[in-house]
């Protein structure tokens, strides 16, 4: 049997030491009434046959489309060395670093990851990561609720709608008041946000670039919210953070992000990486693992999990969160990716992506009947309004091998004719020219 090494002789010798005649005797405590009513599963397969089956399944997914789909999840180039390094067994077959002396590799890498994402977002502190960008928003909101002992959460409709639904699910049994402030043509309504903030507000939550791609400055809102004692939360796009005004510079107290764009494959929705950073003042409210630098008994530098008194294995039901893992391997990929690109490589990635989006917006806006939804500054994605339902146009374009973007009507009633178009540095001008030509053809 694969992956079990025991020979018949080994099994016999072990049974003898245990003092039983058969393996079945080891299960004698399980009463017959609890035995399986069925265990109807196929027989095992050889590695070769299993591979053939999985390759066949993989071939039934359309990954050869030219795609302008993004909406929070991006196809950026990943250097080959990211895979090579993170597939080292010493990293990926290790457990949580509870024995720090035998886990300095994982621990130092997480410390370096914390440093890298903190710098990228212009904040003070980071944890070792949480499941994904959406969970990070939920955890950020809960930090604010604990810190302020208030219950009102003011969130912009321009925050990724999937994350807003997730927040609703997680908090359904808690006595929170979620106030969602509608967008205006894809832009955050900062005036309405500010009006919604009062002395009962735990936090404001915005996203920049927002879900529609608009790059926005929340500084004024944050200053106003802070004056009311609220915590300022922003969801960022880490590639763009290398070139746009940082959460820290805007006055954010907590900055979170989906880290998928930093070296992780899209992999149909996960595993991803929830980046979570905050100011020094809030660090003890932060959930999840945190790695700290210290010294050993001989004075040498080493790293340990720290501030564990916040966590569930110590505090049980009084813990800051039930989270007891991080996305360590994903954080390692993120760190390796950031190191391989470096400051300059990441800035070039961001600039090239924004440049492609600018070029695409220009081309598409020239098509009769097509308008850009919002003329403000955008990052690497932008929304356009079409003369007919975006779903229909999208379907026709998929028939030509192109995914032209994400139809917004699914999450924004009233925007059924709108499409969110995303570019990365991987798109060529030719891809964009064909997109524009065929879209014009279809309209």
């Amino acid at each position, binding site marked *: 049997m694969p*992956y079990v090494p025991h020979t018949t002789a080994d099994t016999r010798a072990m049974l003898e030491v*245990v003092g039983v005649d058969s393996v079945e005797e080891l299960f004698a405590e399980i009463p017959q009434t609890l035995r*399986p009513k*069925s265990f109807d599963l196929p027989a095992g397969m050889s590695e070769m046959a299993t591979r053939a089956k999985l390759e066949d399944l993989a071939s039934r997914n359309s990954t050869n489309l030219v795609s302008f789909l993004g909406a929070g999840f991006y196809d950026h180039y990943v250097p080959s060395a990211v895979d090579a390094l993170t597939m080292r067994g010493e990293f990926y077959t290790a457990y949580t670093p509870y024995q720090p002396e035998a886990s300095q590799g994982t621990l130092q890498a997480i410390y370096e990851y914390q440093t890298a994402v903190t710098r990228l977002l212009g904040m003070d502190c980071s944890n070792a990561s949480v499941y994904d960008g959406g969970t990070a928003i939920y955890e950020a909101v809960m930090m604010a609720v604990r810190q302020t002992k208030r219950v009102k959460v003011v969130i912009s409709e321009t925050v990724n709608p999937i994350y807003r639904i997730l927040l609703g699910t997680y908090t359904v049994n808690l006595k929170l008041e979620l106030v969602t402030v509608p967008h205006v043509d894809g832009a955050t309504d900062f005036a309405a946000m500010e009006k919604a903030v009062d002395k009962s507000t735990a936090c404001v939550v915005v996203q920049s670039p927002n879900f529609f791609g608009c790059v926005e400055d929340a500084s004024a809102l944050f200053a106003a919210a802070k004056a009311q004692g609220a915590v300022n939360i922003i969801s960022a796009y880490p590639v763009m953070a290398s070139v746009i005004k940082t959460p820290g510079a805007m006055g954010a107290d907590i900055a979170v992000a989906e880290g998928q764009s930093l070296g992780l*494959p*899209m992999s149909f929705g996960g595993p991803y990486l929830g980046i979570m950073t905050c100011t020094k003042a809030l660090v003890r409210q932060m959930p999840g693992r945190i790695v700290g630098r210290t010294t050993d008994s001989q004075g040498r530098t080493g790293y340990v999990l720290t501030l564990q008194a916040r966590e569930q294995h110590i505090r049980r039901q009084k813990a800051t969160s039930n989270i007891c893992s991080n996305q360590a391997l*994903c954080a390692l990929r993120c760190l390796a990716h950031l190191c391989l690109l470096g400051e300059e*490589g990441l800035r070039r990635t961001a600039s090239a992506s*924004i440049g492609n989006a600018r070029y695409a917006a220009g081309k598409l806006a020239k098509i009769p009947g097509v308008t850009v939804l919002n003329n403000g500054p955008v990052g690497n994605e932008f929304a356009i309004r079409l003369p007919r339902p975006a779903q229909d146009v999208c379907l026709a374009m998929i028939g030509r091998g192109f995914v032209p973007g994400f139809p917004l009507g699914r999450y924004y009633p009233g925007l059924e004719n709108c499409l969110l178009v995303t570019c990365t540095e991987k798109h060529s001008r030719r891809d964009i020219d064909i997109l524009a030509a065929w879209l014009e053809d279809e309209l």
Partner: protein
Amino acid sequence: MSTVFTKSAPGREGVWPKQPEHDLSDLLPAGLIREVPAGLPSLSELDVVRHFSLLSRKNYGVDSNFYPLGSCTMKYNPKFCEDVAGLPGFARLHPLLPQLPRGDELTQGALEVMYESERWLAEITGMHDFTLHPMAGAHGELTGVLIMAAYHADKGNKKTKIICPDSAHGTNPASAAIAGYEVVSIASKDGIVDPDALAEVLDDEVAGMMMTCPNTLGLFEKNLPKIVEMLRSVDALLYYDGANLNAVMGKMRVGDAGFDVVHLNLHKTFATPHGGGGPGSGPVGVCEKLAPYLPISRVVKDPSGRFHLRYDYPKSIGYVAPFYGNFGVVLKAYAYMLRLGREGLIKVSENAVLAANYMRKRLDDVLEVPYDRICMHEFVASADKQSHKGVRALDIAKALLDKGYHAPTVYFPLIVKECLMFEPTETESKETMDQFVDDLRDILALAETDPAAVQAAPVTLPVTRLDETAAARNMHITEDM
């Protein structure tokens, strides 16, 4: 070893895309452009490769070291599963594709993997339906408790409490509390749940109870039928923490035994790697009456054999993940299940239990084993006796590191003094276990003659014992610029 930031040399070229055509100042207004650089390192590819190679050598992993870490199931992670998870047909798949018009047709292979994985897990556990969305075990717990809450709300039940045995993982009470419940802890008797203790706290306000079986002492909960009956009498639900499913595949199905909700850890029983602390995957299974509350989306198969994602479940608790869970992890577990098949999965449990009992018998004359009877996939020993000579469980753990082994779990569960918890798993050979036992016996002998030598361990690793108090006090959690 210095950090990657100190190795940076400004201007050194990494894996850069070509120079973009536009300056940032042409693309964004000045007020929205980042003013100061982030301070990410500038390194050559070889600099980076060497840095990470050096780091990797400071880690123990299953690939290089026996890792008998109780409760964590550190079995071998087949290379094959890693390999197929990287197939471009899966790895390059955008999660929003199925949300496009007729998008299901673009992702039939992935949807089939999800559908089939759910069916496998349902048959293995005897549950009616599964969701793959929870992204870790603790996340599965939260999802499960939210499902329980939705059921009670729907029935108009006024429930405020969840019961957890004192041997439970810390995540159980934490998950229940985060879902809005009051947590009631009950004491164990002879290492298992005591029905009398349960009776004392059981009333109409109890929403459910969370159990691990076999429990965290590696013992089978033989009062299970009685417990199920008691909970039913107040319409409370029974939650199964699947951390230890690897002991009972083909021997007991939690659904048949009366559990209503279960979460599994694919990174334990189904051999997906722990990755140094994640990513995991924590699918949740439910009995038929709880199926309407499962998170959306759900994957269904139509009569023609095509797969679809459906969202029209009005009683669903909603989204617990942005998409369909940690698909990449599920895929590895699916590959593992296909490889092993029915007989292979049964053999996994049989050999995991055999290995644990073998190690228990090889050690019970030198270490106190508080529940020295047939165990399941793991067993708990106590270094209480050794601690009277000054050698604590932690010291033994550190001495094992010096011998090239990862330590067993120490000080968990909390109900055994100077606890050491061993879980060899089914993938370790008899020779490996024998050598480990010999080395551990040597350490215990040394503890008698020279306790200071054991207390000084580890001495062969890159660092000796680290000052955790100073770490918490000084809080250096990022490198200064």
